[in-house]
Structures are given as C-alpha cells and as structure tokens.
C-alpha cells in the first residue's frame, strides 16, 4: 500500500512541475511594468512621474527645423502627434512613449522626427517643473482610433510604473496635410 502511494506522489509531483514549466511566463512577462490607466483627460500618477493626455492630431507630412535646417518627412502611413503633460517628477528622468494601436500592436516613436522641437528624444524631465512635450508616431491609419498612449521611464523599466493614457474619444482628431512641429 505504501509503495503505490509513494508512486502516486511522485507522478503528481512530476505532473505539477511539468505544468508549472509549461505555463512559466517569460522574463518580459514576469518583470513587466505595472500599468496605471487614466481615462480621458485625467492624470495618471506613477512612482516617478505623472502624465496627462492633452491632445492629438494627425498629418500626412511633418516639417520641423533642426539646427537651422528645414526638415520635411512624409509617410506611407500617417503621422500621429500625441501631446501630453509631464508633472510631479520625483527624479530626473527620460520618458519613452509607445502607441498601443487598436489591434494591440505596440509602436515606438518614429526616429524620423528626431531633433524636432518639443519631441521626447533625449530630453530629461526635472522635479518641480511641468513640461508639455509631444511624441510622434508613424502608423497605419486604422491603428489610431481606439489606441492608447503608454508612457514609462526610458531604458530599463522593470516592475516600475507604466502610464496608460486613454485617448480623447470625444475630441475629434484634427488632420493636417502638412504640419509644422514646434515647441
């Protein structure tokens, strides 16, 4: 009687370990940031900073001045310019912006607007100062409506806050054929 019981414990143990191994989340899933979601126009407060979505606009072409040179970019998709406010900064940080499209895909900021006034780039946000930067994304047109802006500290963001900003559904999106990016 003792032997079958021991065998049973062994089999159940192996089955449990196998199940745990099969369902073990990967590194990114285990150490993913904690998402804090704010609804339209409200402030999302994280550990190191708070943010509020202000406005959005789209453009077929963007232009900006970089070191005295006029730069113009066009796209096969559409440019989305998301405006937001950074406040209540606890420690000097850089901020990374990602657009989570309606499909759930994540889009990084386009590198083609690098150096544009007001862009995130390598900008640092400082305690005690409120800033209103923008992030520029290059997207398929059907990924804008129903999407959301995700903001987090730049570089390593392990088990820290990620601020999700619901977009302004009631506010009609303004489209420009050509938009000049300014501060």
């Amino acid at each position: 009687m003792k032997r079958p019981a021991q065998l049973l414990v062994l089999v159940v143990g192996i089955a449990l370990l196998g199940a745990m191994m099969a369902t073990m989340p990967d590194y990114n899933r285990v150490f993913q940031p904690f998402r804090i979601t704010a609804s339209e126009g409200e402030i999302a407060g994280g550990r190191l900073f708070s943010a509020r979505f202000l406005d959005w606009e789209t453009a077929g072409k963007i232009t900006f001045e970089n070191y005295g040179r006029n730069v113009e970019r066009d796209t096969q998709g559409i440019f989305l310019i998301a405006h937001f406010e950074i406040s209540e900064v606890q420690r000097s940080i850089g901020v990374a912006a990602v657009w989570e499209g309606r499909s759930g895909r994540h889009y990084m900021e386009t590198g083609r607007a690098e150096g544009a006034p007001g862009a995130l780039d390598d900008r640092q946000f400082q305690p005690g100062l409120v800033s209103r930067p923008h992030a520029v994304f290059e997207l398929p047109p059907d990924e804008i409506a129903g999407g959301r802006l995700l903001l987090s500290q730049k570089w390593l963001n392990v088990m820290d806050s990620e601020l999700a900003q619901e977009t302004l559904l009631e506010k009609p999106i303004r489209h420009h054929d050509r938009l000049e990016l300014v501060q």
Partner: protein
Amino acid sequence: MRRFARWAAALFLFCTLTVLAAWPGFVDLRRSSEWEVVEAGGRDASLKGVQVRLLAAEGATTEQLPDRAAILVRLETVGDQEANDRWVDCRVSLLGEGGEVWLPLTAGNSDAVVRALSPDGENNRPCRSAYRDNDEAGKPLLSDQLFLVASDRMHGLRLHVSGLGTRPMALSFPLEPRVRHYAE
C-alpha cells in the same frame, strides 16, 4: 525528534539557497543605492581614501524662464590609484527637502551653459565620465555637472557624491548656490 531535525535541515537548506540565489541582486542593489549618508559640514570631506572638495556652485535664472535655474557644481577629487578605482561610476546628484532627486543634464548642448557659469570658462566634464588612470593618481581631478532645478525648490538642497566602490556610502554637502539673474 528525528523528524524535527529533518524539517529543520530542510528549512536551513531552503533559506541558505534563497540567500545565495538573491545575493548577486542584493550586491547590485547595494552598489546602486546611497543608504549610508556621511554628512559633510563644509566644502571638504573624504570618503574611502578620496578627498572631495566643492569648489563652486553657480546658478543662473533668466527672464524668459523664471521658474527654473541652471546650477553648475564644480568638484575637485584627489585620491591614490586604489582609491580612484573605488570612485569609478562616480555619481553626483542634488536632493531637495521633499526627497526629489536632480541628476546632471546629459544633453550635448549644455556645454555652452557650463562654460558661461564656470569660474574659468572651462568645462571639465561630469565626474561620471572624468578620466582616471595611473597618471591621474594623486592629482586633483576637476569635474563640472550642470543641473536644472525648479526656482522654488532651491532652498535646503544637498549635494550627494558617491562612487561604485563607496556605495552604499555617499558624501552629502549642504548646497547654497550663488544665483545670478539674467534679464533680456
């Protein structure tokens, strides 16, 4: 009794393995944190063989952006080679009364502001990137770091300085920058 001993041994083994597994993480945390702050009364202090002197703290505000001040902090560090090695990854930060932390600006275009605020018009680069090798041992090493601080939070600032080999210990200096206002 034997059963208790077996449980105790298993518990001991479990705890030991847990500590061993977590040890590298704990060491990393120690090296990145400033838990033990050594208060410096004046502008001079030493920590783990390196003498640190606060040479200048110059601030400036402008008419266009009165809500913020640029603050230049110039430090001089002197130590032998062994001590200098402990100061690799030197970290300089400002702490506010409310616990806020300002880190030096990293933007490349801050060079002109550093030169405008520094006493001799030079930019000696931040402590973090200051070059240290055998030739530098025993010689005073200058570093310049530029901060952007909210104008209404300039009182009660403290300057924290530490190196990879000194942390979790850090030096803490009281900081009262001399602030000049630039009108249009």
